[in-house]
């Protein structure tokens, strides 16, 4: 990250630097798309194999209310980020910082909700590799649990893998925004130089996009 208006030595001018760093972030996002995409491909294949088991796992054990709230939280955080970039472009530093802090707050909210979901799944013995036991002992309607336990476990393998990977990216995003907030506090950004905010925003929107697809795939398979 650069000081206010500081031009890195390899670039001729700020415009070139801005173009390079924006394109660079887009190229990185393309790699992230393929990264998540590999895991999603596996998930989609197995969902085709084991539609019944995956539907049962999603219907019986995924909390739609919590998932919905999380989706809304993340979409709001994308909104706050977009507004932050807007304020940065217009030099409104205080509003920018408010938006950045709001984004961080929403992100942490998401992570907390996710953590409670994880804890619930742990208590229900649904964590593969740790304590997976199927059918779970205290389910209300055990007669509905007709799927092959191994296939249900596969669903949870991917549930934890995908959401944990996503959460990791969110934590990194929180870190990035913390750094950006500190820099904004120190007056690093101006209408001429706010590219780090924009580029961080792109990353955050991508994290949101991943969740936009994870939500129906994991929570809405009936």
């Amino acid at each position: 990250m650069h000081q206010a208006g500081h031009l890195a030595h390899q670039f001729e001018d700020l415009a070139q630097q801005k173009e390079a760093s924006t394109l660079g972030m887009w190229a990185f996002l393309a790699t992230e798309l393929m990264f998540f995409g590999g895991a999603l491909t596996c998930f989609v294949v197995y969902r085709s194999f084991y539609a019944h088991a995956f539907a049962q796992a999603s219907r019986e054990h995924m909390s739609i209310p919590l998932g919905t709230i999380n989706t809304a939280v993340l979409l709001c955080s994308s909104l706050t980020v977009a507004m932050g970039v807007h304020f940065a472009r217009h030099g409104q530093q205080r509003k920018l910082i408010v938006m950045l802090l709001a984004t961080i707050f929403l992100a942490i909210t998401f992570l907390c909700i996710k953590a409670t979901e994880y804890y619930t799944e742990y208590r229900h013995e649904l964590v593969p590799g740790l304590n997976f036991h199927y059918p779970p002992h205290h389910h209300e309607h055990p007669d509905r649990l007709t799927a092959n336990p191994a296939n249900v476990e596969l669903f949870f393998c991917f549930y934890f893998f995908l959401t944990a990977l996503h959460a990791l990216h969110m934590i990194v995003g929180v870190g990035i925004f913390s750094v950006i907030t500190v820099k904004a506090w120190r007056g690093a950004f101006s209408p001429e130089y706010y590219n780090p905010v924009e580029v961080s925003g792109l990353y955050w929107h991508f994290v949101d996009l991943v969740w936009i697809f994870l939500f129906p795939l994991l929570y809405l398979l009936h």
Partner: protein
Amino acid sequence: MALLVVTVVATYLPWGSRIGIVIAMAIAIIKATLVVLYFMHVKGSSGLTKVFVIAGLAWLAILMGITLADYHTRPWLSGEAAMTVQPQER
């Protein structure tokens, strides 16, 4: 944009089985498209940015599409049943 958040998220109530996932994915795609175009400013951006976006999506489509095509076309020429991996009971 804030409207998007509220309305679209609300429209996921469980329908029938197969159609439900299609609708859910369609909504997800619409949401994603709006985020990409407007939040990420792709709509007003240079052609090169659009190329990067489309390339990423195309490559993912290649990965998913061809892999799924393998599984779905196995019965076509060899007569075997589709998707028949049966695990042993635990």
